C-alpha cells in the first residue's frame, strides 16, 4: 500500500489530507446554492401589505381576507365577547405570550395586548389599544399544523371558548385568538397592522 510504515507523517499523507480537505470544502460550497434555491425567491419575499375596509363588518361578524397567501381574520367583537376575553386569567393560558407583532416579544397575552396600539387615525395622538377593543385581527393559521380554524357565530359556536375551532386536530381558541385547548402550542399570531382611519386598517 502507499501508506508509510513509519510513525512520522509523510509528504504523501499530507497530500492526501490536504486533497480531501479541499474536496470537502468544495463539495460543501457547491451544496449551498443547491439548498438555498429552495428558500423563498425575491418576488415572494417582496412583502405584500393590504388595506381592509372595516365599515361593512357588523358586530359579531368575522370576515376572512388573504394576506401573504394566508387567511387573515378580521372580527368585530360584541361587548359581551370583549368582557369575556378580558375576564381570562393570563396565568392559566397554554401560551402566556401575546404573539403580537405590534408588541414586544415578551408581552403577556392579555386581551389588550392582542390588539394594536397603532390607532393613529385622522386625529392622531397617543390613543391606547383599549380604545378599539372591538377589532381583532389575526393570522388565520392554526399554530399546530397550519389548518384554517373555523370562527364561532352566535348560531353555531365553535368549541367551548367562543372563538375558533380547528377541525383538523381539535385545537380551540378563545375570542382573543388565544389557544385554550391543544394540540396547538401557541396563540394565533397577530400581524403587524395599524388603523389608517376609524374604518380602515393596513396590514403588513
Amino acid at each position, binding site marked *: 500500500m502507499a501508506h508509510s510504515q513509519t510513525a512520522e507523517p509523510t509528504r504523501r499523507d499530507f497530500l492526501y489530507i490536504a486533497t480531501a480537505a479541499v474536496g470537502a470544502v468544495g463539495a460543501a460550497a457547491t451544496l449551498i446554492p443547491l439548498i438555498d434555491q429552495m428558500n423563498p425567491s425575491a418576488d415572494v419575499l417582496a412583502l405584500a401589505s393590504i388595506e381592509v375596509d372595516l365599515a361593512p363588518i357588523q358586530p359579531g361578524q368575522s370576515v376572512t381576507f388573504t394576506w401573504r397567501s*394566508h387567511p387573515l381574520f378580521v372580527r368585530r367583537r360584541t361587548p359581551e365577547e370583549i368582557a369575556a376575553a378580558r375576564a381570562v386569567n393570563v396565568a392559566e393560558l397554554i401560551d402566556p405570550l401575546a404573539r403580537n407583532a405590534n408588541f414586544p416579544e415578551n408581552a403577556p397575552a392579555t386581551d389588550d395586548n392582542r390588539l394594536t396600539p397603532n390607532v393613529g387615525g385622522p386625529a392622531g395622538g397617543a390613543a391606547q389599544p383599549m380604545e378599539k377593543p372591538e377589532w381583532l385581527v389575526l393570522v388565520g393559521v392554526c399554530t399546530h399544523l397550519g389548518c384554517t380554524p373555523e370562527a364561532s357565530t352566535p348560531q353555531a359556536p365553535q368549541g367551548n371558548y367562543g372563538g375558533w375551532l380547528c377541525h383538523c386536530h381539535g385545537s380551540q381558541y378563545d375570542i382573543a385568538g388565544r389557544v385554550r385547548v391543544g394540540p396547538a402550542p401557541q396563540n394565533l399570531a397577530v400581524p403587524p397592522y395599524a388603523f389608517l382611519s376609524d374604518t380602515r386598517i393596513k396590514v403588513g
Partner: protein
Amino acid sequence: MSGPSTYQPKTGFERWLDARLPIIRFSQEHLLSYPTPRNLNIWYTFGGILTVFLTTQILTGIVLAMHYTADSGLAFDSVEHIMRDVNSGWLLRYLHSNGASMFFLAVYIHIFRGLYYGSYKAPREMIWILGVILYVLMMATAFLGYTLPWGQMSFWGATVITNFFSAFDALIPGLGTGIVTWLWGGFGVDNATLHRFYSLHYLLPFVIAGVVGLHIWALHVPGNNNPLGIDVKGPQDTLPFHPYYTVKDLFFLSCFLILYAYFVFFNPNLLGDPINYAPANPIQTPEDIVPEWYFLPFYAILRSIPNKLIGVLALFASLITLFFVSWLDTSAVRSTRFRPLYKQFFWMLVADVVILGYVGSQPVDAVLFNTPVPLVWLGRLGTLYYFLHFWIVMPLVGLIETPKPLPDSIAKSVLAAAPAE
C-alpha cells in the same frame, strides 16, 4: 446461496457476449436457476407483485407527466384535461391513483409477512433495513404525488404534513419555521411548493427502483427465508426459481390484478376523498382533513398526543422503530409458526394497526360507536401498544417463550403427509 454458475454459453454470440458483458449469465443465475426454498406460500409472491406495481406506476406516471402542468393556476385544470380530453387519460390517471393504493396494500402484506416469518432476523437484517427505507421512500413519493392535482385535500394535506417540521420550533425557536419556509419556498404552500413537489415526485420512483436493486441484491446473498424459518440445508430443500416460482408469482399477481381492475374500472374514486375534486383554496380548510387510507394509522398516532412536538416525534418514532426490529427480537426461532406466545402478540399488532387506521379515519372529536368513550382514547391505547409491541414485547417474549420443536429440514416437512402446523 447461488453457488458456482452453471451457465454454459451455447452459441458463438453468447460466448462472445459472456466474455464482455455477462448479462445472460447474471439473469440465468438470479432469475432462472436461482435456488429458492421449495415451501414458499402465497405470501411470498408479494415481492414480485410490488415490482410489477413499481413498473406500472413509473409507466403511467411518465405518460401522465406528458399532459400535466405543475403550476398552481393550471394544475387542477390540467388534471381535468387528462380526465376529459386526453385519449385514455381517465384510464391512465385511475391506473396511477389506484395503483398507489394497491402498491401500499401489497407492501403492507409484504411487511407483515416479513414480521410473521422472522425474515428480518440474522442474516437478513440488511434486507429488512433496505425494505424500511423503501417504505419511507414510498410514503414520501405518495405524499408528493397526492399534492399534484391541487385539490382541497392536496393543498391541505401538503400544508399539514410540511407543518410537522414546525414542531421543532419548540426545541430551537425559529428552526422549525425556517425548515417549513425552506420546504415551501414561500410563506405558505404555493406555486413554488407545487413545482418542487412535482420535480421530486418524478425523481423518487427511480431512487426506489435503485434501492429495490439493493434490496434484491441483499436478498440473494443469504437467499429467501421461508415459512418454516429454518435454513436451507441442501439442494433437496430448493427449487429453481423458474418455472416454479415464476408461475406461482404470475398466478397470484393475476389474482391481485383482478382486485386492481375492480377499483380502476368499477370504483375508481372509492379510495380517494371527494373533496379533492374541489380546487385548492388557501383560506378554507375542509371540515375533516383525512389522509389517504394507507397513512391513517400514523395519522392516528399523531392525533392521539395532545402536545405538538411529542405528537410529531411519536409519528417519526413509529417509523424509526422499524429500523431496529432485527435487534429487538431476541428469539432464536424465526417463524412465528413455532412461537405460540409471540403469535398472539403478532395478531394483536395487526389488530392494533387496523384499529389505529379506523381511529385515524374518524373526525377528531368522534366517539366509539354510540358510547360516550372518546375515540382519541382508543387511539392513545393503540399508540401505546404499537410502541410496547416493538420495544417491550418483542425482546421479552423471545426470552421467556418456549418455542415448538422445529422440523429437521424443509424437504422433510414438505414431503411429510401431515401439514407442518
